[in-house]
């Protein structure tokens, strides 16, 4: 786009990468960064203002807000990594099979993808939670299950174009087996494209995860998830708005930090995505 190399934009990118790095560090080092146990209830110290020991104060059960925010990074990043991994595996399996097999297999798998794309995403995720039950694992399954179809179609489109590339044709003429061509010549470029597309989507997926948790349909209390924390604090909007402010700010900053590099990648890749993708 227009100001690709503008200093402001480059600064934003650096800032976003720093935030992502900090979040990853917080997620990995949570037990050392957080001063308190995020689930330790202490009713004698509930709804404390910021002060000694806990510098953001405590929530309605006397749990340290800062510690819960730090552990929240672990839950948020952990779920998104799991979701992306699941989507990659599922869409690679379906997309490669469809693109490589062709014929009725291809037609059948693509109609299945169409079928999943017929549903409104969030509504289907809610329904899946209703069927599977709430909890961390089921949220991961529900979000992955509602997002894979779009990726599978892109994988198929990529495989179809790559199949016609000269180096692949050359490998076939040279007598390389189908499986080897798939692994050596088709999978690496497809995987690279997919990883980038998934980065574009991470912020969106995080919003879905915390949205479900906010509804009480996702990660369950007392797990320190940011959406759960906002839901827990709903009745304190009049008296303790900080309990809602900070977890929301964390979601907002995290999603933004993932969206900014995504936007840069989109600019770099736009022609590729537009001609080969959905």
């Amino acid at each position, binding site marked *: *786009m*227009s*100001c690709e190399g503008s200093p402001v934009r480059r600064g934003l990118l650096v800032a976003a990468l720093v935030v992502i790095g900090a979040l990853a560090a917080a997620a990995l080092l949570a037990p050392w960064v957080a001063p308190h146990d995020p689930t330790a209830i202490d009713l004698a110290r509930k709804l404390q203002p910021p002060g000694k020991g806990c510098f953001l104060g405590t929530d309605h059960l006397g749990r340290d807000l800062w510690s819960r925010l730090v552990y929240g990074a672990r839950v948020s990043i952990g779920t998104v990594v799991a979701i992306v991994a699941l989507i990659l595996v599922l869409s690679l399996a379906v997309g490669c099979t469809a693109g490589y097999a062709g014929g009725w297999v291809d037609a059948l798998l693509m109609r299945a993808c*169409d*079928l999943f794309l*017929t*549903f*409104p*995403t*969030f*509504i*289907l*995720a*809610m*329904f*899946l*939670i*209703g*069927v*599977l*039950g709430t909890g961390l694992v089921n949220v991961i399954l529900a979000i992955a299950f509602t997002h894979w179809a779009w990726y599978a179609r892109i994988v198929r489109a990529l495989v179809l174009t790559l199949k016609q590339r000269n180096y692949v044709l050359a490998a076939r003429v040279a007598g390389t087996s189908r499986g080897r061509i798939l692994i050596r010549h088709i999978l690496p470029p497809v995987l690279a494209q997919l990883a980038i597309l998934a980065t574009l989507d991470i*912020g969106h997926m995080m*919003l879905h995860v*915390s*949205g479900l948790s*906010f*509804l*009480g*349909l996702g990660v369950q209390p007392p797990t320190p998830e940011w*959406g759960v924390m*906002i*839901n827990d604090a*709903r009745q304190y*909007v*009049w008296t303790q*708005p900080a309990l*809602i*402010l900070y*977890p*929301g*700010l964390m*979601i*907002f900053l995290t*999603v*933004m930090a993932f*969206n*900014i590099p995504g*936007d840069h990648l989109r600019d770099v890749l736009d022609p590729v995505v537009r001609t080969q993708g959905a």
Partner: protein
Amino acid sequence: MWGYVGRRILVLGPMLVLVSVVVFLLLRWGAGDPALTYLRLSQIPPTPQALADARSALGLDRPLGAQYLGWLARAVRLDFGTSYVTRRPVLGDLLYYLPATLELAGVSLLLTIVVSVPLGVLAALHRESLLDNLTRVLAFTGVSMPSFWLGFLLVYAFSVQLHWLPPMGRGGVAHLVLPAITLALMSTCINIRLLRGSLLEHLHARSVLYARVRGIRERWVIGRHVLQNALIPVVTALGMHIGELLGGAVIVEIIFAWPGVGRYAVSAIYNRDYPVMQCFTLLMTVIFVGCNLAVDILYAWLDPRIRFGRENTA
């Protein structure tokens, strides 16, 4: 063009039947036992005898195919079963709450269009101006903002602090302001940038240059040659936004205690009220598919390449 529309409608029927099969199978393969849930919600102790009775009453003892066909036969007559909780027909309950949701989603969609089109046009015409950069910041903010957080921020500012607007419930126009803004923000932000990008592409098209050479007034060039073409990708994206609006409406209804289908469905999911979950998912999908069909028709009408191309082949 009508041939194209007709074909799209013909495909829709089988697609919706397949959707209902998927929903039905997911329910049956899911973790819960509907008979057990039914007894729990009816407050009957789950003795083996009671369970067996509930199974046969709900038709769960029959083969899966027969169960589905039975369900389909009733669904065609708009009978989607009765709620385990309220004991009323599910569709009746959902249709009772639907107008509130449609009002919320409709107003948000309108807000999105009314705000994003002028801002998108201005941002494209005054590229790199203050306004353009503001919309860029707004786009990032809007896309990253969790609606449930935005809702609380708005409530805190305009209800708790300023006492300007009611914090929850449905009533007059004042009740609609905060929920509609909360729901519309994300789509609006995406749309502004999308329209801006699309306009910039079309501003440099040859037809526009030619129109200028012919000495046509600038206002007419922008309106007729640029905007109409630039709207095409925006209209395509509109279908996607409707899906987001339907899902987002659920969250907004919970924040603002808006009495819509979303709130009803969330409590049904807590209770595992299976007939309600099933009917809600299907109803939302039908609305989504219907809106997408409308969008496609609009798209075909806007884009002469499709309008005439299809007519020639038909």
